[in-house]
């Protein structure tokens, strides 16, 4: 590039005046014309060189070039491949046209010309394809400038470039090949690939298919691993880009290359143990890689979690814990940021992974006779570190260690015994031989003398992890008695009472000098309260122990209404009080559930008591927003600042953030604890109502006003009691969460509705039933009637037949008598006809009567049938029996509905 700088001077002198915009335009135009139409190769090359330098320096020339120059240069690149010098010059000019100028005079410009040029160039896929093809050229500078052009395009229009490169066959393959090129090219290609793989899953996969893992690890090894320079950092950034949220690539790394190359980067080499800034960044990036492999993250899909579990197993099998413990615990030279990240990784590795948890419990650090369990060392960090972040991350390890791990909790709390008196004041360096429990107790109490409860609060946080959901450990801790102190006047004191005392001390310090020594006790009370809350959950004996000292209750009530306490402190105090009711099994007067509820209602008032819950729930700690906080990835630009920032982070945060947004509080109120408090709150509300509605408890303690007055009648007394209870109930209800109330009443409303509907429905059924039976009756009556008619008809026809028979008889007789000769009655024929006529007439009249009757019946039946059909009756079935003179079938009941 040297030959370029020679011209720069000349051009700079000639075009010193930037304002001559039209001059530049025409100058650029002339140069382009020379390049395009020139005949002498030498002259065209000269023009190219001049064009490059003017574009590199001059703002308006850059703008002018974009408008006219691109086609000219692209045609050079396309058609004049043989002229290496021209191609080289064209590419260099392109690079210049895409590089932002930091001219002082460009303030008035609305559009950055370099961005515009990038936009123009990247618009055509063919241009990108042309550039990629140039990577196959032999000339070093051609490949080098091409990579630079592509990188510049990527920084300006990332997604468009990503799409184009994906669409070009073997586009990524070409770029990957550059990783095996000469060092300078390789480094450029690394940067380019880092941009290219950003948030583009398909590109990430293709890059990996092309062997990215092997190539990256080879380069890092060549460059000296974590001791290497910025190239290693670039490699790690590329590695992280292709692993981030990409299960497929993570699987591939695990299944083929393995995690060893990643883990070995964490290994500290050499004796100097020096941590340059670059090394710190490299280590942080590697820890980020590990984090990526094991964190299920917010993007967790269903398959992702099994993937992260498998990764955890594989990493621990490959001894990653050893290196992390070295970085996070043992190394005295590691910067805070590295230690914190390493501890956080340990916490993530053991989270919900019993095997890894056991593995950590077995780890022993240091060498005999100074060896001690790793967990003890981490506890010591918690008690001693001056970095807030380090405490938070170490605390995270214990939190995950104790989560669903009752055996681990038992193991750690089994040693909860006070150390011999002689050791209480021993210098803390000697605590290597202390058991975990002793060290913890020591931590809980050691700060008492200097009035700084910071360490005590941290130890309390650890103790709360130990006791969480573990009745056995809670009981064990209840039995711990601390040796006499000057304040306790010679008698041993239960650990819990001591904790309450510290709670009181913390609040008194708070009120005395608001922000004592710049490290206010913002979170100390909260931490101790959290311990007590977790301790009392589902543990009546802990409640008993807490209530054993009368002042405790009084103090809590005071804290509840203490205006100088934070919203959270008051809220937590309310929760603790509620627990004293909820898990209360005491029978002693004044200490039982009713007694405490009564005290609360008298001293604080139930409304204001429940208000404390609401206030706390409304604070930011309980909003789900804070949980989405994520660590920012280390990038080349942010890397350096990140290392520095993390060291001062605490101070910075302290200054501009108010107490409620303290980082420790955020870790204190993790999702778990928020859920516990939430469920406790609703249980407490229920319990309060329960306590008031349970008369047995009321008998035990009757407040003065509830006693029967002299001369008061039975009825009056009962009425008075009733009204009292009602008042209390309404007080509780108004104090109750409005949301709950509305939901409760809407439920009730709904139930009422349903009940009414049900009643109506059953009434309707009853009505239908009646109607049906009435119809059945009618049908049977008509049936009877019909059969009667039928029988009448039959008897009539019988009579007719017999009449007819009689007639034939008579006729026969008459015939025989006629044939007999003598005919005494000559008019016998006339008489016969008369008789026949008469009888016929008679029977006909009777028959028509009958038919009329029948017709009437028929029409009646028809009408009834229609009606029955209307009502949904099965008429055919109903009439089935009619002919047979059998009663109605019984199974018609189902039709009632």
């Amino acid at each position: 590039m040297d030959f370029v700088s020679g011209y720069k001077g000349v051009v700079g002198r000639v075009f010193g005046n930037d304002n001559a915009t039209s001059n530049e335009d025409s100058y650029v135009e002339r140069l382009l014309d020379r390049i395009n139409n020139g005949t002498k190769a030498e002259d065209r090359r000269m023009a190219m060189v001049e064009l490059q330098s003017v574009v590199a320096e001059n703002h308006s020339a850059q703008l002018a070039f974009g408008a006219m120059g691109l086609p000219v240069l692209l045609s050079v690149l396309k058609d004049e491949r043989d002229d290496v010098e021209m191609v080289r010059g064209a590419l260099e000019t392109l690079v210049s046209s895409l590089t932002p100028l930091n001219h002082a005079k460009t303030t008035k410009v609305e559009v950055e010309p370099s961005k515009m040029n990038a936009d123009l160039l990247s618009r055509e896929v063919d241009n990108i394809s042309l550039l990629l093809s140039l990577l196959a050229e032999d000339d070093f500078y051609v490949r080098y400038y091409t990579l630079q052009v592509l990188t510049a395009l990527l920084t300006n229009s990332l997604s468009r470039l990503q799409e184009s490169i994906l669409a070009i066959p073997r586009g990524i393959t070409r770029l990957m090949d550059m990783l095996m090129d000469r060092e300078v090219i390789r480094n450029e290609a690394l940067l380019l690939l880092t941009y290219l793989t950003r948030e583009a899953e398909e590109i990430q996969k293709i890059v990996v298919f092309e062997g990215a893992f092997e190539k990256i690890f080879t380069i890092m090894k060549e460059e000296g691993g974590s001791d290497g320079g910025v190239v290693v950092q670039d490699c790690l950034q590329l590695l992280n880009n292709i692993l981030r949220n990409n299960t497929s690539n993570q699987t591939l790394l695990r299944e083929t290359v393995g995690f060893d190359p990643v883990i070995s980067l964490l290994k500290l080499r050499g004796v100097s143990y020096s941590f340059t800034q670059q090394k710190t960044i490299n280590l942080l990036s590697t820890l980020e890689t590990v984090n990526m492999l094991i964190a299920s993250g917010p993007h967790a899909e269903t398959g992702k979690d099994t993937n992260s579990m498998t990764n955890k197993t594989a990493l621990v099998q490959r001894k990653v814990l050893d290196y992390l413990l070295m970085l996070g615990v043992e190394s005295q030279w590691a910067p805070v940021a590295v230690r914190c990240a390493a501890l956080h990784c340990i916490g993530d590795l053991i989270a919900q992974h019993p095997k890894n948890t056991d593995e950590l419990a077995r780890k022993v650090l240091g060498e005999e006779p100074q060896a001690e369990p790793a967990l003890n060392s981490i506890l010591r960090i918690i008690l001693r570190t001056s970095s807030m972040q380090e405490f938070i991350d170490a605390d995270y390890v214990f939190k995950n260690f104790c989560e669903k791990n009752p055996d681990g909790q038992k193991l750690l709390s089994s040693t909860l015994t006070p150390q011999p008196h002689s050791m209480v004041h021993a210098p803390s360096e000697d605590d290597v031989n202390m058991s975990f429990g002793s060290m913890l107790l020591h931590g809980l109490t050691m700060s008492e003398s200097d009035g700084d409860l910071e360490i005590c609060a941290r130890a309390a946080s650890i103790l709360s992890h130990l006791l969480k959901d573990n009745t056995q450990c809670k009981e064990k801790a209840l039995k711990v008695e601390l040796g006499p102190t000057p304040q306790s006047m010679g008698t041993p004191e239960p650990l819990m009472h001591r904790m309450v005392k510290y709670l009181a001390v913390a609040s008194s310090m708070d009120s005395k000098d608001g922000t004592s020594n710049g490290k206010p006790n913002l979170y100390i009370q909260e931490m101790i309260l959290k311990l007590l809350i977790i301790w009392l959950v589902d543990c009546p004996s802990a409640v008993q122990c807490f209530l054993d000292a009368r002042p405790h209750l009084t103090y809590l009530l005071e804290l509840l209404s203490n205006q100088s306490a934070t919203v959270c402190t008051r809220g937590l105090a309310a929760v603790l009080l509620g627990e004293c009711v909820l898990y209360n099994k005491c029978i002693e007067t004044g200490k039982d559930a009713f007694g405490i509820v009564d005290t609360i209602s008298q001293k604080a008032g139930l409304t204001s008591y429940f208000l404390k819950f609401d206030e706390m729930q409304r604070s930011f700690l309980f909003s789900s927003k804070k949980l989405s906080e994520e660590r920012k990835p280390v990038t080349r630009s942010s890397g350096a600042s990140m290392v520095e920032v993390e060291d001062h982070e605490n101070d910075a945060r302290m200054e501009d953030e108010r107490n409620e947004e303290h980082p420790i509080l955020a870790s204190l109120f993790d999702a778990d604890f928020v859920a516990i408090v939430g469920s406790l709150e609703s249980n407490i509300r229920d319990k309060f109502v329960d306590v008031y509605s349970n008369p047995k408890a009321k008998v035990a303690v009757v407040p003065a006003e509830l006693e029967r007055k002299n001369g008061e009648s039975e009825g009056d007394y009962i009425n008075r009691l009733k009204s009292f209870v009602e008042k209390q109930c309404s007080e509780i209800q108004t104090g109750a969460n409005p949301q709950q109330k509305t939901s409760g009443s809407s439920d009730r409303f709904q139930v009422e509705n349903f009940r009414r509907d049900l009643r109506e429905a059953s009434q309707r059924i009853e009505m239908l039933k009646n109607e049906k039976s009435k119809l059945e009756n009618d049908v049977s009556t008509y049936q009877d009637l019909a059969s009667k008619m039928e029988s009448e008809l039959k008897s009539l026809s019988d009579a007719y037949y017999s009449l007819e028979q009689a007639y034939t008889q008579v006729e026969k007789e008459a015939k025989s008598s006629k044939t007999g000769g003598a005919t005494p009655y000559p008019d016998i024929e006339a008489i016969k006809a008369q008789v026949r006529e008469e009888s016929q007439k008679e029977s006909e009249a009777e028959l028509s009567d009958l038919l009329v009757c029948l017709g009437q019946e028929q029409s009646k039946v028809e009408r009834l049938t229609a009606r029955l059909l209307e009502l949904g009756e099965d008429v055919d079935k109903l009439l089935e029996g009619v002919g047979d003179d059998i009663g109605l079938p019984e199974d018609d009941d189902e039709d009632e509905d």
Partner: protein
Amino acid sequence: MSYDYLFKYIIIGDTGVGKSCLLLQFTDKRFQPVHDLTIGVEFGARMVTIDGKPIKLQIWDTAGQESFRSITRSYYRGAAGALLVYDITRRETFNHLASWLEDARQHANPNMTIMLVGNKCDLAHRRAVSKEEGEQFAKENGLLFLEASARTAQQVEEAFVKTAAKILQKIQEGVFDVSNETSGIKVGYGRPSTAAGGRDGTVASAGGCCS
């Protein structure tokens, strides 16, 4: 983890012919009747032994949909073997074989070993392509051929293993330059010869035995 060779495979063919199911059956030995549409490319790996040699198979299962073609083409060049799959119950998937083959010839290494797989052979009653037709197509185009069923696991193992055996045979015949990455073949650490040793070898063995 040590292997003599590592082979890269791709699985190609129309959408819905059962590419992902074949892979799942091969890597996890299970069948998933309802499979999500593959987006882009998915990865799977398994170790097989051929002639006593441990061989690692890296398999890229590609999306069959036309819209992913440009992405999946990027995987052709670096693959040593390909499973070209069609569905014996759907004639059109067989008819499209020629275009798949053309794609492969255009973008892949010319020495890529291709195994033609007629999948879903358990559904014989719905057969739309006879076995003879498949055989004929394979013969005409110089492909290996078998019919398999991802559902019953029938011939699935063979599809992958026979391809690997063929690749191994080609290596032994000297067809490949195994040091060239684009062949889709890598010589493993476990192998005593070749240039894979050196510094790579020392670290790998350190990782392997210090545990």
